[in-house]
């Protein structure tokens, strides 16, 4: 249903030369919150990429005589109890948080798309078995397992990526599967088959590109939930280890000393919340723009 209407509307739009993507971009541009989110994210990403060159101090640079001072001209966001510059630590923390967000999402994306596409394209018994497996994983209390995993196998970043990525692919697999199922019976796929294209080429060249809209939307919404997970694990002391910094870790330090030095909690908290805010707004906006039918909740 959804796909046939979108083909119709793109056919209708064709004389005016407005492609689906351009159309989506026009719609997205009207959404102020989504554009704010996009702008803020670009800013954060550029700043975090450039951190080693623009950070005012080193992230391990201590000034114990200074101790924790409130925001000032020398230290815009103040310093922590070791006299480390908070702005610098937030910037470096942002690098880690974003890195975890993007890499773990990429892991989830690859697994989810491959799994969903195979289940959807092959169908039948294989599909039923594969989807039952997803149902079982869905029912597992994932947080508990991740904590268990971090405790049992130690706290390394790579494992964190894999663990988070390995649980976030479930919804992606479901979305891709249903998209592929819908697309599989359409004429252009039959045409591709009759031209002798192999199944894998059909999936990669024809089916996945046509399912790209929902994939992009869901990817944008996965990043914040992954970042949240990382922040939470670091908060518990199971994620990123000091002297490295990440937003979750900075927040957990901030909590310990918030009575005397509230800025140590407030600024890292703002950094995390605003970034999550932006990602969610952008994701919602993209969903409205790319997939108007699915925007009900």
């Amino acid at each position, binding site marked *: 249903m959804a796909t046939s209407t979108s083909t119709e509307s793109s056919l209708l739009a064709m004389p005016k030369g407005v492609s689906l993507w351009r159309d989506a971009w026009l719609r997205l541009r009207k959404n102020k919150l989504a554009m704010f989110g996009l702008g803020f994210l670009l800013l954060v990403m550029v700043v975090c990429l450039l951190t080693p060159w623009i950070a005012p101090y080193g992230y391990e640079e201590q000034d114990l005589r200074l101790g924790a001072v409130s925001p000032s001209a020398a230290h815009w966001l103040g310093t922590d109890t070791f006299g480390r510059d908070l702005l610098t630590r937030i910037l470096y923390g942002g690098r880690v948080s974003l890195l975890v967000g993007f890499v773990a999402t990429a892991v989830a994306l690859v697994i989810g798309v491959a799994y969903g596409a195979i289940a959807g394209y092959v169908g039948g018994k294989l599909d039923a078995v594969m989807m039952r497996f997803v149902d079982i994983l869905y029912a597992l209390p994932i947080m508990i397992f991740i904590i268990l995993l971090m405790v049992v196998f130690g706290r390394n970043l790579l494992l964190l990526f894999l663990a988070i990525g390995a649980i976030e692919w479930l919804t992606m697999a479901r979305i891709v599967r249903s998209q592929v199922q819908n697309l599989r019976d359409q004429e252009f796929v039959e045409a591709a088959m009759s031209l002798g294209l192999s199944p894998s080429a059909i999936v990669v060249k024809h089916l996945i590109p046509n399912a790209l809209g929902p994939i992009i939307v869901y990817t944008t919404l996965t990043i914040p939930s992954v970042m949240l997970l990382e*922040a*939470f694990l670091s908060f*518990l002391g199971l994620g990123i280890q000091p002297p490295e910094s990440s937003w979750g870790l900075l927040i957990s330090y901030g*909590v310990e000393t918030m009575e005397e030095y509230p800025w140590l909690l407030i600024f890292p908290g703002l950094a995390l919340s605003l970034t999550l805010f932006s990602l*969610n707004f952008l994701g919602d906006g993209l969903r409205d723009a790319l997939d108007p039918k699915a925007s009900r909740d």
Partner: protein
Amino acid sequence: MWRFIAVRTLQAIPVILTVITVTFFLVRAAPGGPFSSEKAVSDQVKAALEEQYRLDLPAYEQYFAYMVDLFRGDFGPSFNFPSRSVNELIFQGLPITLELGLYAMLIAVLIGVVAGVCAALKPNTLQDYIPMSLSMIGICMPSFLLGPVLVLVFGIWLDWVPISGWGNSAGDKLLPSITLGAMYAAYIARLSRSGMLEVLSQDYLRTARAKGLPEYIVIIKHALRGGLLPVVAYIGPAFAGLLSGSFVVETVFQIPGLGRFYVQAAFNRDYTMILGTTVFLASLIVVFNLLSDILSAWINPRLRYQFRK
């Protein structure tokens, strides 16, 4: 309906079995024996300990023995508190966690439904924008941040409520419950808004109005029942989420609930305790999901059809 319940219950069993098996072998795969960090003990003591915890048996025999114990409702002794069983510790923490979860759920449903319905009644006005923006804050502010911020503002700066504890002084249950419930209130607000918006455009509401019913009866009697279906379907998973999310709040506010035991056990490498709490929490969560599925199938008969072939 009975068929639906039977099928869904049967489906829950492999999930719980998977949880037990995966957890069991994960914990066994952990590096370092449970007593390796302790002071040197004589071989006799070690052997006695190993026998007590059945570590002298091969892994698969341990597994089956554990399964048999579980079947009788026995989670075995705790590594760290040898005189106490995991059962005791679980049932000491459980009532507190359940109480916390219940309050949080009440707050979430109450605030969420009121905010969502208000927003849906006047879409795209301030009455819509304000609660919906607030709900976005609820979603983007994780509980480990919201909790401390609430403590800082209301506990320390304003000094209105106690900053930690559970049931020791008046009002100390308020902040933890709000912290835990906030995110779910936000989701419920969004769900009930979209659910109500969809129902409000239906013909049967026009009929209800056309036959002269006052607006509040139209809303309360006719629109709410359909519009809040997504919320009902969400309550089970939400309660499951509340239970597994409660350890953050329990850690932040120092509440001696199940979640705090779990985190402590994880840090102390109290393997039997980890195993016991994981299996227990996970089964609880699966059962709540099952109940919520049954509840939503009961309210919405269309969901039952997929099992009537």
